[in-house]
């Protein structure tokens, strides 16, 4: 039976809780309600209040308490109800969690889960992609899975990791993406990108829900005999530069695609690295496709205009291929 992206995350956490009694979950409405998106559904009954900790509406205290518990040897999985509210816990993440090991050698083995992304008509405060803020924070690891397999394997790796991990789950993928998962325990390594689709004419470097936007464009271009390669970054920090450069060297044309807004997004960073390390392999300028530099709008025509889509990818790809 196929497992959805959402179920994959639940299974991943569940199995880690069964495996390691030090793993516990903390967040808002995660107990009897099972979480706003039902990731923790059934966990309270199975694991009890000690390990499924409902909190007041206090994102900073949720992250802070996770840090304290992590330093005492537990493995907290903290849930932000929406990634948009992670700002309320920003100081704890970037100043406390991210800097402890560097400053005084303390491990902070926490996972902060953050449901992110648009396309669900959530408006400005339930649709954001705030990953770039955290990619700019040394000491953190930042994960953005796009498939059910990776979501499960990466949430397990995140829980077992001894550094603080921000785990962005794309809300639009929760129930839309599903696949058969292995019966046995498996993990997906943090810091490794994967070639989602092999191709030879143009590379699209992307992650999260945009992997499927790129895939639609690739299917369309295939009809015209054009072969698109899609690299799914999976982890944004540490970035898997090797896989990106390999793909660029192979196709010599590259588009960086993300749902996060353009300026200061991860695309700029990757473009710079390609410029530094693979300039002589390029046959065309490195191009970016991202959301415009605006808040995420609510009304459907506005949100559609805001989000990158296959049409925008096709236009940019054709432009690049004709360069």
């Amino acid at each position: 039976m196929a497992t959805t992206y959402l179920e994959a995350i639940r299974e991943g956490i569940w199995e880690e809780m069964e495996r390691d009694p030090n793993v516990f979950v903390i967040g808002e409405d995660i107990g009897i309600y099972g979480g706003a998106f039902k990731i923790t559904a059934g966990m309270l009954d199975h694991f009890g209040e000690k390990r499924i900790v409902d909190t007041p509406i206090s994102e900073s205290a949720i992250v802070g308490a996770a840090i304290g518990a992590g330093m005492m040897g537990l493995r907290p999985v903290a849930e932000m109800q929406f990634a948009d509210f992670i700002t309320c816990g920003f100081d704890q993440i970037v100043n406390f969690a991210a800097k402890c090991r560097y400053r005084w050698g303390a491990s902070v083995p926490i996972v902060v889960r953050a449901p992110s992304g648009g396309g669900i008509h959530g408006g400005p405060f339930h649709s954001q992609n705030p990953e770039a803020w955290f990619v700019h924070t040394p000491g953190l690891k930042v994960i953005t899975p796009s498939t059910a397999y990776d979501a499960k394997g990466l949430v397990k790796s995140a829980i077992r990791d001894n550094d603080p991990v921000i785990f962005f789950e794309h809300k639009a993928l929760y129930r839309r993406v599903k696949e058969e998962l292995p019966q046995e325990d498996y993990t997906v390594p943090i810091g490794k990108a994967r070639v989602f689709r092999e191709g030879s004419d143009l590379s699209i470097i992307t992650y999260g829900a945009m992997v499927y936007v790129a895939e639609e464009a690739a299917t369309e271009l295939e009809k015209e005999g054009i072969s698109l390669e899609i690299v799914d970054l999976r982890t944004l920090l540490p970035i898997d530069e090797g896989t990106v450069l390999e793909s660029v060297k192979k196709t010599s044309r590259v588009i960086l695609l993300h749902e996060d807004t353009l300026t200061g997004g991860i695309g700029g960073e990757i473009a710079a690295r390609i410029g530094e390390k693979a300039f002589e392999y390029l046959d065309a300028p490195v191009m970016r496709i991202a959301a415009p530099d605006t808040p995420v709008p609510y009304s459907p025509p506005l949100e559609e205009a805001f989000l990158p889509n296959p049409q925008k990818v096709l236009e940019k790809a054709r432009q690049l291929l004709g360069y």
Partner: protein
Amino acid sequence: MAAVKSLLTGNPAIAAEEPGTEAGLALRAFHYMTLMREVEDRIERKLYRQGKILGGVYVGRGQEAICIGAGLAVEPEDVLFPSHRDLGLYFIRGIHPRQVFAQYMGRVGGITRGKDGNMHMGDLSLHIVAIISAMAASVPVAAGAAMALRYKGSRNVALCFFGDGATSRGDWHEGLNLAAVQKAPVVYICNNNQYAYSTPLSKQMRCENVADRAPGYGIPGHIVDGNDVLAVNATVKRAIEHARAGLGPSLIECKSFRMTGHSAHDAASYVPEHLWAEWAQKDPILRLRSRILAEGWAEEQDLDRITGQIRSEVEEAVEWAENSPYPDPSEVLNNVYEQSIEGK
């Protein structure tokens, strides 16, 4: 480390009194408070002015009774979250003054090997968690640590220190509320020294006492004379028993006064003159000294001997720290992650 311990146990006046007695407690407190004062005086009034310390200097002059009264109330595995005026806690846990001077001077002999400065020191093997500069950030972290101690079935508790200014931050409220709801075994200790940098308490909050806020979270609040080390110790002990008994957190407000500027560069000209004179009379070390002599717990010469020994220990420690090398520039890349991610 052994040196400071032997300084304490090797002193016949202190060794003669059991730690559990009032006399034993008072003499140990005298030792640690004097050590803290001497080390911080050296840091603020000499090393900083000589240009040997380049970054910030935050001392607890006049407030030593708070961290030391509390520090002598805990068990070795209770987890401490010191604030920036609680140097004495580190000495009680066995940190040597050498490491503190080296820390301030950015040397490898410092607790953070030059990665961080001044009071930003922690060591999980000693159950001390380092502060960050954003005030009150430790408050929810201590709540989580306390929840974890209970989770693991430990009888240990967390002690979290902060100043009056920190109580204005959201983290303070979120942390206290979460700790209260969770009945976490944590004791929150406020050093109310009446100034947050230049801002007096009247511009920090409308209620009269920090402890008045405790009922708002449904937890006990206590007010104690923060310049009376034995009173602080007794109050903290009660709150620790409360926490160990599973009854949840307490908030203890220790009333004191910051007998310095916010940091070494701040002359604190905004503090009315009469307050300095008034609080100098209440100096916690002088008060303890008088109490010890009045009770007959030790003689004048015993106390002078403790002070003298500490001063020579401080001399030696400064010399040690000055001889400690600066970190190699290559260390800048170390320990961002458990495993290096270089080349990614």
